[in-house]
């Protein structure tokens, strides 16, 4: 595009130059002709006036001399003087006298000429000018001049040469200007295009770096700014990206490490639990073995094996047996509690007949109550289903602990156990144990469920027990998603209530539990 434009401009320039030259040459020529004609006319006029007398007098010598003088001029090639008939009298390049035999055609034409204007004729690059000498109304002769056009030719040549030179200079200037224009406009534009292409190909570091301050320079600078801005933004984006990636990697590594730590921690916890239950099993075994010896020999002594003891010793040995039983109960309770707290107690939920289960559970406790002359009653709400799903053994432990406590702390009156369905959703049911015993002071009701705590520090000795029964009952209720509450008034008795989720057995023919 730019090349075409430049060529077009050059051609136009050339044409203009040529046209100008032609016009100039033509004008020069015309001017020169007019000048030459005026000069010739002036010379003729002068000659006519100069030669008037001599012609009139026919002084041939003088006329010849005049022609020679005039012809001395470079531009005047020939001067001729004719008589009244047109016969040549004198000529600059002929010796005097000229003896013409007949009339000269030019001279004859000149003497016949009328009017004041000179005869002018351009012939083969020469001007022939002539004028008659008229005195009064009669022609006495005529004078003709031949003027060289060499100066004209020379001047035309010179003008043409000048024009060509000017044209050449103009063309050179045009080319230079074109080149400069290309450098100043098309160059930067091409550079800009190239840079834009590079940039679109992904090279954001490309810059045009213009030196000019014109519009193209301004455009280039804007382009540079845009490129810098894009590059900066791209750099920022990349940095942000990298930073994000680093963050993600760091976070991932952190998570992986946490995961590994968690796995290790879980393994340790599992190992710890495993060790704890192994420890519990070992403790249980190691405590029971010597206790077996104590209780075994004690029983043998009481049975009189191999010999009967004296009565006084028998009583002592009975005390040993009683204490051994208490010790065994304590060991069992402690292990139970430890197992629950070590998370080793797994619920075994099975369906069982509720009424059969409560009867079987309370039968041995009823015996204890009757031994103390206490009334004992069990009732089951009709709204409760026949068969439920729960851990019958854990439930039994809770009931045994609570009912034994009730019997233990009641010296007269009754112990009543009742099972009922609670209203509301999700379905729940409760086991309540009410006694008419000594009761629990309100301040003590909060801590009686804690290990080794009874309402009164002295009661352990007075009433026996390990102080672990309620703690075990509470912990068991908790792992069964239940709660134990107590209502009590000193001197009137206590009511313990276990509330549990009720799961009705889907299978109707559930077998009664084996207790």
């Amino acid at each position: 595009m730019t090349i075409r434009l430049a060529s077009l401009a050059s051609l136009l320039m050339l044409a203009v130059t040529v046209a100008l030259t032609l016009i100039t040459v033509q004008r020069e020529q015309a001017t020169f002709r007019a000048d030459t004609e005026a000069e010739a006319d002036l010379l003729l006029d002068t000659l006519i006036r100069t030669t008037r007398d001599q012609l009139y007098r026919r002084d041939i010598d003088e006329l010849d001399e005049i022609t020679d003088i005039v012809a001395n001029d470079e531009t005047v090639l020939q001067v001729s003087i004719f008589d009244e008939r047109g016969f040549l009298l004198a000529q600059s390049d002929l010796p005097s006298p000229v003896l013409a035999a007949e009339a000269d055609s030019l001279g004859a034409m000149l003497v016949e000429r009328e009017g004041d204007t000179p005869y002018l004729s351009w012939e083969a690059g020469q001007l022939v000018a002539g004028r008659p000498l008229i005195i009064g109304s009669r022609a006495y002769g005529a004078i003709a001049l031949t003027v060289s056009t060499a100066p004209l030719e020379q001047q035309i040549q010179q003008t043409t040469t000048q024009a060509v030179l000017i044209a050449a200079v103009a063309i050179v200037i045009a080319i230079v200007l074109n080149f400069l224009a290309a450098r100043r406009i098309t160059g930067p534009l091409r550079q800009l295009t190239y840079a834009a292409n590079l940039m679109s190909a992904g090279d954001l570091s490309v810059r045009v770096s213009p030196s000019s301050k014109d519009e193209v320079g301004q455009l280039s600078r804007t382009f540079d700014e845009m490129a810098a801005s894009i590059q900066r933004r791209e750099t920022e984006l990349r940095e942000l990206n990298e930073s994000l990636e680093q963050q993600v990697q760091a976070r991932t590594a952190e998570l992986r490490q946490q995961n590994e730590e968690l796995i290790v921690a879980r393994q340790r916890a599992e190992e710890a639990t495993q060790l704890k239950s192994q420890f519990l099993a070992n403790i249980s075994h190691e405590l029971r073995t010597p206790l077996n010896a104590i209780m075994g020999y004690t029983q043998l002594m009481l049975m009189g094996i191999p010999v009967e003891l004296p009565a006084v010793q028998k009583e002592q040995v009975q005390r040993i047996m009683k204490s051994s039983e208490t010790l065994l109960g304590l060991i069992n309770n402690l292990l139970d509690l430890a197992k629950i707290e070590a998370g080793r107690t797994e619920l075994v939920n099975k369906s069982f007949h509720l009424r059969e289960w409560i009867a079987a559970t309370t039968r041995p406790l009823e015996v204890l109550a009757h031994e103390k002359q206490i009334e004992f009653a069990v009732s089951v709400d009709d709204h409760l289903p026949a068969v439920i799903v729960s851990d019958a053994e854990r439930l039994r432990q809770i009931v045994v602990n609570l009912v034994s406590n009730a019997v233990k702390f009641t010296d007269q009156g009754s112990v009543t156990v009742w099972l009922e369905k609670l209203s509301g959703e999700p379905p729940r049911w409760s086991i309540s144990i009410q006694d008419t015993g000594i009761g629990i002071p309100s301040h003590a009701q909060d801590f009686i469920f804690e290990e080794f705590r009874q309402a009164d520090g002295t009661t352990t000795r007075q009433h026996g027990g390990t102080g672990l029964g309620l703690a075990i009952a509470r912990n068991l209720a908790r792992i069964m998603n239940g709660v134990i509450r107590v209502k009590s008034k000193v001197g009137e008795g206590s009511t313990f209530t276990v509330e549990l989720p009720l799961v009705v057995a889907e299978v109707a023919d559930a077998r009664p539990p084996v207790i």
Partner: protein
Amino acid sequence: MDPDVSTWNILIVDDDPDSLGVAHQFLTFLGAKVTIAPDGAKALEILAALAPTFILLDLSMPELDGWEVFKQVRANPATASIPVIALTAHAMKEDAERVKAAGFDGYITKPYILTSLLDNIKRVLAEAASRPAPPPPETPKSSNGAGHSHSELTHESR
């Protein structure tokens, strides 16, 4: 003296001398013939020559333990039909299940009430007598209840 007990020929295996002592004195007093073995190897040695009415077998013993002795007793056709009662201080719930699964005829935990020991032994023997043929080795006793009944003193009972 117990008329039933006087017919019994018992092998008691236990590494604890007091455990042996209590059971030995009690059952001998009742009229049983009692042989004692302080370890597993000795027990197997005795069994090569003796055909006891039943075996009271402790589980935790150094060297050859009760589990291994039980396995070998069952594996040997000459002794396979002898009732074996585990008499152990392993009283956790898991122990009871393991003993039952292994196929012991009975499971009694230490410490025990002497009279219930007697009751349990009688129940196991009655159970064994009602069986027509000796059971194949490693076959666990089905849910007859007597096979894993144990002392009332054991809180793990269920």
